């Protein structure tokens, strides 16, 4: 074993990663999955709610206010409350992520659908589409990119929340950071937890941003110009 105290922080970090690469990678995966599960669960619940409130205007205020209130509770506090019911561990963190993801997902679904040009849905109805066909052939395709934006925002928030989740024993990269705060060579270990967390957030953001642009009907068309006259 080398004498760690002789090395610079960067060298220590590289050394730590070499020694514990697999461990960091496993925590990275754990971290990512916890965030993804929470967000997917929220999408599963939030998108139908968003569609519903876009159809029944009166419900929208109530639902969005409720989701807004959840958003204002500090993450640690919400997690503590949920812990009382669900106990320590991953489940509690996933449920916390779920609650925080609801607002951006519901709101963006709602906005995505309600901002579609009225003339377009009206034409669809006028051509003889059923309500379901209007939803599947017009409203969902046209609001998909805005919905993905909601999921993207939710996922970035979720990665941050999951890092805190280590405090209640959920594992993930937060675990490494907590270890770092208790160790002697703290800087290197904290970096080994924090850098991958940041990287994950940035990569998710870029990836979903690209998907979002792919799905935007207007931006997509600009690439497909054939022979404008």
């Amino acid at each position, binding site marked *: 074993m080398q004498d760690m105290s002789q090395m610079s922080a960067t060298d220590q970090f590289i050394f730590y990663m070499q020694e514990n690469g697999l461990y960091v990678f496993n925590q990275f995966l754990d971290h990512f999955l916890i965030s993804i599960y929470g967000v997917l669960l929220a999408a599963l619940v939030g998108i139908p709610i968003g569609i519903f409130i876009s159809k029944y205007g009166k419900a929208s205020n109530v639902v969005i206010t409720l989701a807004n209130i959840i958003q204002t509770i500090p993450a640690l506090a919400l997690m503590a409350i949920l812990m009382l019911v669900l106990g320590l561990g991953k489940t509690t963190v996933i449920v916390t992520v779920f609650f925080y993801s609801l607002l951006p997902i519901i709101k963006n679904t709602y906005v995505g659908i309600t901002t579609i*040009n*009225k*003339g*377009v849905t*009206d*034409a*669809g*109805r*006028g*051509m*003889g*589409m*059923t309500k379901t*066909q209007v939803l599947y*052939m*017009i409203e969902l*395709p*046209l609001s998909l990119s805005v919905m993905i934006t909601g999921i993207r925002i939710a996922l970035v928030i979720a990665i941050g929340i999951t890092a805190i989740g280590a405090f209640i024993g959920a594992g993930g990269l937060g675990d490494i950071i907590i270890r770092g705060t208790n160790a002697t060579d703290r800087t290197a270990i904290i970096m080994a937890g924090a850098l991958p967390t940041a990287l994950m957030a940035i990569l998710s953001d870029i990836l979903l941003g690209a998907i979002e642009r792919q799905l935007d*009907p*207007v931006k997509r*068309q600009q690439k*497909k*110009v*054939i*022979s*404008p*006259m």
Partner: protein
Amino acid sequence: MLKIENLTKIYRGGKIAVDKLNLDIQEGELIAFIGTSGSGKTTALRMINRMVEPTSGRMTLNGKDLTKMNAVTLRRSIGYVIQQIGLMPHMTIRENITLVPQLLKWPKEKKDETARRLIEMVNLPESYLDLYPAQLSGGQQQRIGVLRALAANQDIILMDEPFGALDPITRDTLQDLIKDLQQRLKKTIIFVTHDMDEAIKLADRIAIMHEGKLIQFDTPDNILAAPANDFVKEFIGSHRLIQQKPNIKTVDEVMIKPISITIEKSLDEAIRLMVEKRVDTLFVTDGDNRLQGYLDVESFTGARKTKRSVSECYEKDIFYVKTGSKLQDSVRRILKRNLKNIPVVDEEHHLVGLVTRANIVDIVYDTIWGDEEPTTSSEGQTVSDSFRELISG
């Protein structure tokens, strides 16, 4: 065929948009709804395909009560051009045109065939079928909106200001297309417009609406001859009263005998004929006197050395009107397209006459000075005003 009785729409909030509308529309008729903005035209039209549910009243189609039909089935059986165009931004032009066939689950080949056939009718290249609506100009989009209503070949077509964003020439072409469709395929068309000229040109009968009420429902001629009240009179506009004169109604009454040449003749003969008759245009016909095109001085220049017969160098692109057409339309067409004259053909495309610019001057002269009573004295208009309006028609 389509019978509308006491149809009323009161929107939430108590706005009476349509008040006890009564219309009896025959099969194959072209009906225009015209009126000021907010007079309830769109509302009346949208009640027919149940986009707006009537508050009270009855609508029957060949005896069947429309209000009891399934609204979705009803809409698929009626073509509809909406006022806001409303193309699907995420679908190609092809998919947009064949939207109703798609809902009716037509096979792919039949849909593609339809899209190709239709886009050709509005003078757009076939390559446009693969573009998206955002890549088209407003007028092009509007044409696609009209095509979409024709794709499933429905018998009834509702059109809400279908020609609003078009330039005069494209509008003219599309109007002709609609009129032709109605006459040839016996479609029943109801369209909304702000433009009295358009209504007079196209409609068999015009429904004039004002503040939700039907003021007058009659043929253009009858409305021009006997406006129901001052509102209608004002709406028609004083300058159109000239058209009221019975002696200048159709092209048949003013056309002259055209100078024509059959297609197999030589160019020398053509020139000799021109010189002899002192004209600059010859109309080219086949052996059966059917109009094929024309030959004018320009078609000769340069071509004479290499070409010998009429068939080699006549112009096939020719505008014409049918016998029985309204004179005002022909005048408008001559002026708008800057033609020197316009030939008249009968149903079998036989060349029967010619309306020239000189003719028009004669008519205007007759209209203004040939009659004892000045036509527009009641409006305090001068003669030169009416002349100018007829010309700018």
